[in-house]
């Protein structure tokens, strides 16, 4: 079916005509790739009117809904929270929804998918290797008594919280993974995001899973393969500093391995949690979350 015969899409980009005038037209040079048709990605140019507050994502959606509905782009929240629209804009890892087109100070905006992940189509990459590595470092509190009393909270001081607070801002967008030079050559390298989260949970005073995580990160393709290029921290749109966390994780492994392994996790609060118990919530949750079908 030709593009012109396709059913009109219902969603429309807000029409700003009459409200304000476009400041200029910008060429969006977008990487295109259809696995059924193309052998390798190529760039295609589109002319997009840009207003004061037009973001790169707005531009891509303008293309999708006005110029070429076949453009594949992953996005969701449009406010820098979900991390879905991670891509490389004018050579740098950025969130498309957080990048104002005029701030790029260029009449050509080159957009391509993030590095180091398999390409599905156009700007959409397969994030499964990234999330598998995230899962591998056990990014959750591990302790023997966590299942026993679901109605309690664990005590933590503000100072203990500050130890890892910055790392909780990670939105798992994959920009650090794309920027990492080690990930570019070592497909088994855990990557900055997973290693930073390994540190985040290990240093958490409520956690007692250091030994388990050390086994995962102290590997020939683990934490030691980080060469401290710092590209991950420079790329992070949320101000997380994975490079710092990875060096701290190395320090834990060298100087505090035994202390961390034998550390007693924070005690439980005496106060019983109000409202629906965690056990009830867990009972109502599906045992396995449905996964999207694998790309061909």
């Amino acid at each position: 079916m030709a593009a012109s015969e396709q059913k009109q899409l219902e969603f429309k980009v807000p029409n700003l005509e009459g409200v304000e005038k476009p400041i200029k037209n910008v060429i969006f040079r977008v990487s295109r790739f259809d696995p059924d048709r193309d052998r390798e990605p190529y760039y295609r140019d589109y002319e997009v009117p840009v207003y004061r507050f037009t973001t790169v994502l707005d531009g891509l959606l303008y293309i999708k809904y006005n110029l070429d509905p076949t453009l594949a782009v992953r996005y969701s929240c449009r406010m820098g929270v979900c991390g879905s629209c991670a891509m490389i804009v004018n050579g740098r890892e950025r969130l498309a929804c957080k990048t104002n087109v005029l701030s790029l100070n260029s009449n050509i905006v080159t957009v391509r998918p993030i590095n180091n992940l398999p390409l599905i189509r156009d700007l959409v990459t397969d994030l499964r290797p990234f999330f598998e590595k995230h899962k591998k470092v056990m990014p959750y509190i591990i302790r023997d008594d966590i299942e026993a009393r679901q109605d309690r909270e664990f005590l933590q001081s503000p100072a203990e919280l500050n130890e890892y607070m910055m790392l909780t801002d990670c939105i798992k967008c994959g920009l650090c993974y794309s920027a990492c030079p080690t990930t570019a050559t070592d497909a088994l390298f855990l990557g900055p995001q997973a290693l930073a989260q390994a540190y985040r949970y290990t240093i958490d005073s409520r956690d007692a899973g250091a030994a388990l995580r050390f086994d995962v990160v102290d590997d020939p393709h683990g934490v030691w393969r980080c060469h401290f290029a710092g590209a991950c921290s420079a790329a992070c749109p949320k101000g997380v500093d994975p490079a710092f966390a990875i060096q701290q994780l190395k320090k834990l492994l060298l100087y505090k391995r035994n202390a961390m392994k034998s550390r007693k996790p924070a005690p439980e609060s005496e106060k019983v949690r109000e409202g629906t118990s965690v056990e009830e919530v867990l009972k109502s949750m599906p045992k396995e979350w449905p996964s999207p079908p694998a790309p061909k």
Partner: protein
Amino acid sequence: MVRESTLMWIQYITGLGILVLGALHFASLTLLAPGGYPGALEYATVISRYTDPLWAAALEAFLALLSYHVFNGFRVLLLELNQGSGWTKAVNVTMALAAIAAFLYGTRTILVFHLGGAI
């Protein structure tokens, strides 16, 4: 199986050792040479360093540190360039053997000169 953290800890320590002994090595051949800088690299002057037990021991230690640091560094580079269990095993064994071979060959040179011989 040795932990990666242990291998890398030794890598850092040997790196620091190489910095100290390497500086000493170059200084011994230049500023600290008998008679000073002029003629420091003359054959007799260099040989006099090898025949001195302390300098020979320093050279041997330098060689040991270099053998580990260089070949463990190669191992890291090669493991980053390619992946796979067979490749990992091959790289680990080859680099360990190469380090031992380099150390033994270097030791032979130091010993031969120390005992006054020539190759």
